[in-house]
């Protein structure tokens, strides 16, 4: 039997204009016509020569870090955006679920949304009619069928959306992390449905950050890294493991000065990064449950009473989470700095961060006088990639919504 999906040399490049704008104003296009030098444009390879083939009935997981090209590959498979080069042959009716409830409109009733969403997903009207009762039944929304969707709870909207998607009957199904939303019960329902679909001989391509889901559902796994296929194998456990232990983790969790850095008599940074409980610099991604310390090494030629040294922690999207300084403990509790080499350590708070990549910057200054290392400028910075269970709750096996995932105690009366 010929492969159900056969990708050959799929490449996608985006042009990055350095004006950081995806769309243009007409004026800029007009003035661009008369400009001698074209605006500086950089080619960015979202996918580079990606080839793989999927047999009919296979369930294939696609994994990789954010920015590795997973979403781009999904979009190309779904025909939302075309490849720049290469081609994919698809044998069979293909449907893609990049989100559930595409086209849902709050002003329309449940009934109307079922028809609209179904037809956007590619179902024929008679198919929707034939399965209408089953869809409604599955969603558990009978009572609200003629109520505008905006009056539904968000959980109910999600169930209705998933119910429509569940009755899609394609030969090849492309799914994005639809499972990343919704409550635990809903996630179980989704997984159950996908297993049924997979067992019925349908071909599934499944993109996820959830390694547990990939492991239980998929029989093959593609590991994308910087737009290229790093690994593609039947040994799903092996691919997942090599992804998790991948040494090449953004800029890494350790910065080492090479003598070319800015110097100041008050403080000169020598090294900065995250170390484990034994003081060893980390490499690669780490499990969020461990004990980790931020370490700052620097030299002081002249002691200044207003010197503050610390770090700034940013979430993946650049949001500042907090600053922390060696002076935070207050008088008497702050570590003493001395002339010469200093090594400062500060324990990262437990059970605070979510799964994901965080950025740490070394910041320092003479308080209210001047910055020595000003945040968000060219200062020593490291990336910390946290993976693994983001909570002790049995209901959250993957990244939680929000910038942080603190463990907060609960009691009952």
């Amino acid at each position, binding site marked *: 039997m010929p492969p159900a999906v056969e990708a050959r040399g799929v490449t996608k490049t985006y042009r990055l204009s350095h004006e950081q704008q995806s769309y243009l104003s007409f004026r800029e296009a007009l003035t661009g016509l008369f400009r001698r030098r074209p605006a500086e444009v950089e080619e960015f390879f979202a996918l580079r020569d990606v080839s793989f083939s999927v047999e009919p009935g296979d369930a294939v997981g696609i994994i990789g870090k954010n920015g590795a090209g997973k979403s781009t590959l999904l979009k190309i498979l*779904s025909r939302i*955006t075309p490849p720049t080069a290469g081609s994919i042959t698809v044998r069979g009716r293909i449907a893609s679920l990049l989100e559930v409830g595409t086209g849902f409109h709050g002003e329309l009733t449940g009934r109307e949304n079922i028809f609209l969403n179904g*037809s956007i997903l*590619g179902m024929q009207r008679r198919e929707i009619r034939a399965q209408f009762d089953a869809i409604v039944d599955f969603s558990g929304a009978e009572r609200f069928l003629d109520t505008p969707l905006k009056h539904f709870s968000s959980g109910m909207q999600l169930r209705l959306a998933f119910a429509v998607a569940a009755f899609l009957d394609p030969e090849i199904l492309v799914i994005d992390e639809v499972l990343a939303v919704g409550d635990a019960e809903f996630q179980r329902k989704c997984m159950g449905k996908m297993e049924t679909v997979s067992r019925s001989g349908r071909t599934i391509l499944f993109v996820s950050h959830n390694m547990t889901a990939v492991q239980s559902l998929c029989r093959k796994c593609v590991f994308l890294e910087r737009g290229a296929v790093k690994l593609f194998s039947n040994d799903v456990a092996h691919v997942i493991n090599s992804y998790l232990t991948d040494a090449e983790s953004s800029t890494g969790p350790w910065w080492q000065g090479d003598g070319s850095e800015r110097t100041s008599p008050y403080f000169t940074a020598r090294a900065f990064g995250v170390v484990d409980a034994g003081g060893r610099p980390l490499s690669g991604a780490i499990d969020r449950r461990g004990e980790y310390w931020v370490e700052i090494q620097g030299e002081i030629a002249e002691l200044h009473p207003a010197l503050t040294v610390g770090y700034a922690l940013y979430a993946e999207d650049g949001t500042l989470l907090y600053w922390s300084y060696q002076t935070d403990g207050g008088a008497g509790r702050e570590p003493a700095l001395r002339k010469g080499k200093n090594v400062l350590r500060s324990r990262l708070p437990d059970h605070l961060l979510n799964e994901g990549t965080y950025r740490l910057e070394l910041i320092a200054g003479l308080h209210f006088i001047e910055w020595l290392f000003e945040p968000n400028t060219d200062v020593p910075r490291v990336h910390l990639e946290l993976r693994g269970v983001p909570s002790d709750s049995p209901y959250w096996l993957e990244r939680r919504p929000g910038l942080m995932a603190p463990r907060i105690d609960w009691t009952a009366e």
Partner: protein
Amino acid sequence: MISEIRPPSRFSLGLDDLWNYRELFYFFAWRDVKLKYKHTSLGIAWAVLQPLLLMLAFTLFFGGRMREETDLPYPVFAFTGLLLWGVFAAGLAGAGNSMVSNAHIIRKIYFPRLIIPVSSVIVALFDFLMALPLLAVLLLWYGLVPRAAAPAYFASGLLLATAATLGLGCWMGALSVKYRDFRYVLPFVVQLLLFVTPVIYPATYVKARWVQLLLALNPMTGAMGLFRGMLSAAAVDWRVTAISAASAGVLFAVGVWYFRRTEAYFADLA
């Protein structure tokens, strides 16, 4: 069923794809009609009230002055004009905005993008149909009898207007994905075009022949003539009609061509 996903190569109309997704035309148009009249206490009646109120206003202000200029009673003249103008104005505004307002769908799922602006024009045609009975009432009131060839004039006038609306609407829709400026330019242009289209004054109001022929480049000029031709033979100037028809044809071809040529990248830009 084998399909091939590859870089967009030569231009193709993709008619087979449009056919596969034909039901979506209906669903998008149906959605937009539903949303348009939801929460309005008068509902669909607005489709009738809008041209009616405009007609009354124009009759009040221009009716007297235009009495000598039109061979139809001015209210009938204005109403026929406003009916057809509604298709153009609402269709163009809807289609021009449609790609941006449906960006969230475009980013998440594939279907031939042409369906979106075309559905907006269908919505405008729906309003037109809803207001049509009022035209019949007006004709009865004034005791006007359509000419024998009226259906042909009616259909060709409407066809010309629809082709121009579709062409320009697709073009503006595609352009506004890339250049958001067009969202602001469009309402202004539609307003401006009203003054160079014989909606509330007859095409013969301007006496100089060369100006008449120049104005015929606006496809709605010819469309108005043909449409009113169902009531009065004098309304149709064949040379003007030919120029307008050619112009509508060019607009349609260029608009749809530009749309199809750029649609593959809408999801990257939207």
